């Protein structure tokens, strides 16, 4: 069924189709329509679930952890300050290995108050043990949330999953979306198994009392191993979902015209669309760039990225985030992946689009052209190129 949906509503429809059982969420711009739509589904009797109208995001994640520990399939959504407020419990969910799914509408952090898109909030959670997805469009939001449940609940994984969608660009922009049929999704996503544990009066166990150093490290080891196994499961689920709906996203990475490219643009989220358009235009001009959209940030696809990038002579990494004192987070992780290559490409970090500032097709064209020029002329790379601020050779008219 084809429906015109905003990214937020797409996430809500995905949760509906996934037959979530407990939702606990607190409103925050720009996530509110996700939880409002779910409240509509639940109160209208369309979704048999409980909606706990918690009094804060921290309580939202705590309630979800409780519900998940009691065996329910759970879902929540938040953004920006809500996410960093619940950070304590986000870590808890990761270490508890509960298969929770959460939609994150990536939004800038304050001060100043800013409701538009930026990836710093979700990337700040990269150490929590959650699998992290970044979506390019509303269709992918719907498909990925459904896939997220299957991945999270797989007994080789048992990790919570965050699905990131850009504030306003995806969350509030309506586009046509294919909504699968309930029976198709029921076949794809069976009811949840009681893993990794369930609170059961017939089998009294205590979860998470104290453990000493000589016991704790093993749990972290197993979490890392689960992340490593998750990569394979993500690929499998993408394939299976592709057979069901005809839509595949490439698993961990979405490569656009990379097979014969000599320069790569690495990007995450909705701006990949603009990047791909720019690459098409540049190809017409005779350049040979390609776009690598990182779909899964955790577990980070180091080997896959390395395999593709070994052919490139240069890479532009576009970070819609900032780790102050270091630079772009995606840039740093990319470099880690490429370190082992004998002939490493030149990698230039671009910080763009913070606080929701537009990254246009023209920006991408200027970035790529400049990078080609710099390689030819042997110009040294700079630690960070701030698009629109420093080194302003760019015009921002399309």
């Amino acid at each position, binding site marked *: 069924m084809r429906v015109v949906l905003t990214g937020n509503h797409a996430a809500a429809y995905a949760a509906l189709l996934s037959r979530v059982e407990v939702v606990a969420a607190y409103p925050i711009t720009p996530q509110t329509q996700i939880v409002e739509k779910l409240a509509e589904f639940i109160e209208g009797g369309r979704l048999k679930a409980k909606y706990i109208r918690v009094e804060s995001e921290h309580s939202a994640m705590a309630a979800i952890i409780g519900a998940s520990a009691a065996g329910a399939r759970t879902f929540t959504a938040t953004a920006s300050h809500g996410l960093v407020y619940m950070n304590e419990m986000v870590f808890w969910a990761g270490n508890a290995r509960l298969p929770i799914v959460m939609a994150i509408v990536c939004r800038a952090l304050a001060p100043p108050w800013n409701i538009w898109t930026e990836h710093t909030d979700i990337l700040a959670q990269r150490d929590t043990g959650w699998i992290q997805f970044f979506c390019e469009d509303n269709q992918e939001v719907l498909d990925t949330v459904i896939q997220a449940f299957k991945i999270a609940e797989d007994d080789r994984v048992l990790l919570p999953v965050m699905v990131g969608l850009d504030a306003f660009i995806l969350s509030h922009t309506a586009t046509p979306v294919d909504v699968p049929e309930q029976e198709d999704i029921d076949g794809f996503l069976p009811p949840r198994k009681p893993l*990794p544990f369930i609170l059961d009066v017939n089998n009294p166990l205590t*979860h998470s009392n104290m453990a000493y150093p000589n016991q704790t490290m093993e749990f972290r080891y197993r979490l890392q191993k689960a992340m490593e196994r998750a990569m394979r499961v993500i690929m499998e689920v993408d394939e299976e979902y592709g057979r069901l709906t005809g839509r595949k996203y490439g698993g961990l990475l979405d490569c656009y015209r990379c097979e014969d490219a000599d320069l790569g643009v690495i990007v995450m989220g909705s701006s990949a669309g603009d990047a791909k358009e720019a690459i098409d235009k540049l190809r017409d001009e005779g350049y040979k760039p390609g776009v690598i959209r990182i779909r899964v940030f955790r577990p980070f696809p180091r080997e896959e990225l390395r395999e593709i990038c070994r052919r490139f002579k240069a890479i532009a990494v576009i970070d819609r985030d900032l780790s102050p004192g270091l630079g772009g987070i995606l840039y740093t992780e990319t470099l880690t992946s490429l370190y082992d290559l004998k002939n490493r490409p030149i990698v230039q970090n671009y910080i763009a689009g913070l606080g929701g500032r537009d990254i246009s097709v023209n920006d991408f064209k200027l970035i790529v052209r400049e990078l080609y020029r710099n390689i030819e002329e042997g110009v040294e790379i700079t630690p960070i190129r701030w698009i629109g601020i420093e080194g302003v050779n760019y015009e921002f008219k399309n």
Partner: protein
Amino acid sequence: METLETPLSKPSEGSAGITGYWRTFKPVINKSKCIKCLLCWIYCPEGTIIRVGDGVEVNYMYCKGCGICANECPAKAIEMVLEGEI
């Protein structure tokens, strides 16, 4: 024990070991004075006063010697005796 992905603990007496070793004084019940009111049983924080028949006994393996039973006994039937003596 199966490999657990997240810390789950199983019920066990003596999770802190044999806490009877903590004692300096131990409670000794004088059965002839005991009126079987069961107050010592209900007030024991550890659950180491156990019911035997209609009376009580001390579980010396885990009794920590806190002395609440002796302090509360209305018949003064419990004496706190220095460990090693009886």
